[in-house]
């Protein structure tokens, strides 16, 4: 137990101080458990990711939002900051409108995708370029081809819808959606790393808790400090001691000398 107490201690059931350094030492002593746990969790994470999680693919396009219809007469050559600001708030509006039911459903119909609105909604997400008039639209699905097709469908019908809803604006596609070559999620590496860290945390927690709960006597100094009673004799474990009887490791070479003189002293 990592107890420590003031010397000459009284018999209160006092709270024990938890010696952090001693705890770390114990964790280090059990480092093999931590390593094994890390490996086991990592392997489990790997298989879980590979086998149980279906990969998804993301196709995306970028749209530029303008608060002026293409080719109108007024102020064609000047872009004022007021215009820009208005366009930026418009961008947020557009992002929401793109995710609305009419657009999603029409685009789905266009490519023959038969899924309910809830699913369609779950595939599409947007983000806004910071302080820009750019909307990024992401379509994330299980099949790369369908993801691209759906993204393309949305890109083709969204500008018209938006121009009808918000008059005096236009939307242009900046980047077309492509068929993704690599999967979007899950990331095997990331999951394995997370699993490994989780394994380490679990192992360390287990070691620490077990150590804190272990109230056996394990250290002489701790024992005598705790009770204020000296340890006046230490008897080594018999098996260990006899394994190296008359061992030169003991007593710094004192052993040999003592042995012979002891024999003389004791009849």
């Amino acid at each position: 137990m990592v107890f420590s107490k003031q010397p000459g201690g009284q018999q209160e059931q006092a709270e024990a101080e938890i010696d952090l350094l001693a705890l770390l030492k114990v964790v280090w002593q059990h480092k093999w458990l931590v390593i094994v746990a890390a490996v086991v969790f990592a392997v489990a994470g790997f298989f879980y990711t590979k086998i149980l999680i279906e990969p998804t693919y993301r196709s995306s396009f970028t749209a530029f939002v303008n608060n002026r219809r293409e080719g109108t007469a007024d102020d064609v050559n000047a872009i004022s900051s007021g215009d820009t600001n208005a366009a930026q708030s418009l961008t947020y509006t557009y992002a929401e409108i793109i995710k609305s039911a009419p657009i999603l459903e029409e685009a789905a119909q266009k490519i023959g995708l038969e899924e309910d609105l809830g699913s369609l909604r779950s595939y599409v997400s947007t983000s806004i370029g910071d302080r820009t008039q750019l909307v990024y639209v992401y379509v994330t699905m299980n099949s790369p081809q369908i993801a691209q097709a759906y993204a393309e469908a949305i890109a083709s019908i969204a500008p018209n819808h938006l121009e009808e809803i918000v008059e005096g604006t236009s939307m242009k596609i900046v980047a077309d959606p492509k068929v993704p070559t690599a999967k979007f999620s899950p990331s095997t590496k990331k999951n394995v790393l997370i699993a490994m860290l989780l394994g380490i945390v679990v192992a360390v927690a287990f070691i620490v808790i077990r150590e804190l709960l272990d109230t056996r006597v394990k250290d002489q100094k701790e024992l005598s400090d705790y009770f204020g009673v000296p340890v006046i004799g230490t008897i080594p474990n018999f098996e260990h001691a006899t394994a190296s009887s008359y061992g030169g490791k003991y007593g710094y070479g004192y052993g040999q000398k003592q042995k012979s003189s002891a024999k003389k002293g004791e009849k």
Partner: protein
Amino acid sequence: MATKKKSASSAAAQRRRQRNRILSEKSSWPIQEAYRVLRTNIQFTLPGEGNRVIGVTSAFQHDGKSTNSLNVAISFGQLDKKVLLIDCDLRKPSIDGMLKVPGKPGLSDVLAGMATLEESLQHLEDRKIDLLPGGRIPPDATMLLQSSAMKKLINRLKGSYEYIIIDLPPVTAVTDAVILSEVVDGYLVVVRHKVTDYRAVSDTIEQLRFAEGNILGFIYNDYAAEGSKYGYGYGGYGGSGYGYGYGHEAKQTE
């Protein structure tokens, strides 16, 4: 030491292991040295002068109390002192088994008036100690130990021996150990490395202090250094909580 597989023999093997733990000149040097140091420390911490009654107890069974009582007695015997070892664990006397000597008549018989002291005392020439074994297991050990007969017996024995080592039952098991606090000059509490629980030790110390017993110190039993098969950590501790170094104590015992 071959270990047989039958369960009946494993008990025999355990007894054999127990006997191998008895201190003697054939014991390994670390063991001998450990008891030399312990003996010296006991001599130095016993209060005052005169005859010495040392009570050996522990928190729980199997902490190594009886073995250590025996070995402490033998260690004093090695100094050619007159030593008596009394097995006071009347409910579970074990010293006679370790030494392979008759267990009765013994203390309980003497206290009950069913045997004389002379009949019950055994002189063990090879160990250089006298032994008063536990005797027949009595129905009420506490009553016997509490009786005036016990006190009279101890006082009588003090006249004949320089050291009386008493193997007491574990304190948390029964109150026998505490009952004798009047006659015991000093208590040794045996604690076993990585086995004894702090709470049990705490109860033990508390009871002994409550009875105003004089605690000489702990015997830290069964110590093995971490990660060291050959226990060289023992050398580092010097087996002594008092810091009586090897060099110093060697002079004392020679």
